[in-house]
């Protein structure tokens, strides 16, 4: 009887904790969120700025938990959130949950060689043949370097 009630308490507690928000990295300092759609439309104006974004986690790095992809439910705009390996580790269970992430927005410019390498790797992953003619200019990408996040 005692074992049953202990198990019940443990189960209730774990269910209660499962719905709770979990903090990763530093505590969030900003209160006002910047819509991901706004960043997606004019990324250059946000480069170097610290922003707070909110969205649904659609993908998580399955090897190191070092990045998540956050999507704005209404517009479908997405943002890649990267953390320093080991500093924050996002769990796979974050998929489908809402994330509030604060970080510095960054612009990444690849060289032509790097762009070709990336394209080759992507083709290999998809099982397609790589056509060098498809790479015409160096890649430019944007991401949020996360300082802290709350996922619930």
């Amino acid at each position, binding site marked *: 009887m005692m074992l049953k009630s202990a198990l019940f308490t443990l189960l209730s507690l774990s269910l209660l904790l499962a719905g709770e928000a979990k903090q990763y990295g530093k505590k969030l300092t900003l209160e006002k969120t910047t819509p991901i759609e706004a960043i997606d439309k004019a990324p250059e104006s946000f480069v170097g700025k610290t922003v707070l974004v909110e969205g*649904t986690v*659609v*993908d998580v790095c*399955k*090897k*190191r938990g070092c990045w998540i992809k956050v*999507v704005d*439910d*209404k517009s*479908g705009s*997405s943002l890649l959130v990267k953390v320093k390996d*080991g500093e924050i*580790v996002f769990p*796979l*269970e974050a*998929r*489908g949950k809402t994330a509030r992430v604060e970080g510095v927005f960054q612009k990444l410019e690849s060289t032509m060689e790097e762009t070709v390498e990336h394209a080759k790797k992507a083709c290999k992953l998809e099982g397609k043949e790589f056509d060098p003619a498809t790479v015409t200019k160096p890649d430019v990408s944007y991401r949020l370097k996360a300082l802290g996040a709350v996922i619930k």
Partner: protein
Amino acid sequence: MAGCPPAFFFDMTFRNRLRQLHRDFGYFFFGMSVIFAVSGLAVNHIDDWNPNYDIRVKTGRLDSALSLAGPLPITQIARSIGLQDSVTGYVRSDRHRFMIFLGTNSLEIDTLRRTYRYEQVEERWLLHAFNRLHLNELKNGWVFFSDFFALGLFFMAVSGLFLNRGRNGLKGRGGWLALAGVLIPFIFVFLYLM
């Protein structure tokens, strides 16, 4: 000097104590050594093989009878692919894409190309737990214990030099082997990190 034990008595006692401590540390840290060795191998080769999750991907085209014009018929889509998982949520992930969450599994639908990508994820829980311990994800109390383990390793490394010394100890083969073990990491530092 009557009444004083000979010098070798202190040496023997010290060595015996060292041996005893070395052995006890070895027993105590057996589990930790196994965890760090196994996860060390796993993390070293993480680019070639995912030690944390077993991921299976299934792709294909959606049933032509399914209408994607209105609200996404999630249950019908899941059923047409033959999935048994229960839907835990879904979100529009791109202009023409939807991500459907099925617990830890996911199903991505491309409404324009009428294709799907189902990702089934199974956790390799023991290896994942070892890796999380090795990479110090737990922080707090775990840091103290792993610090203790690190100090224990340091003690075992140093005490190991003086236990079974052989005929010449560090002046013979032992010294050369110890030197080689120290030089190898230094060679890598000079070649790749300087």
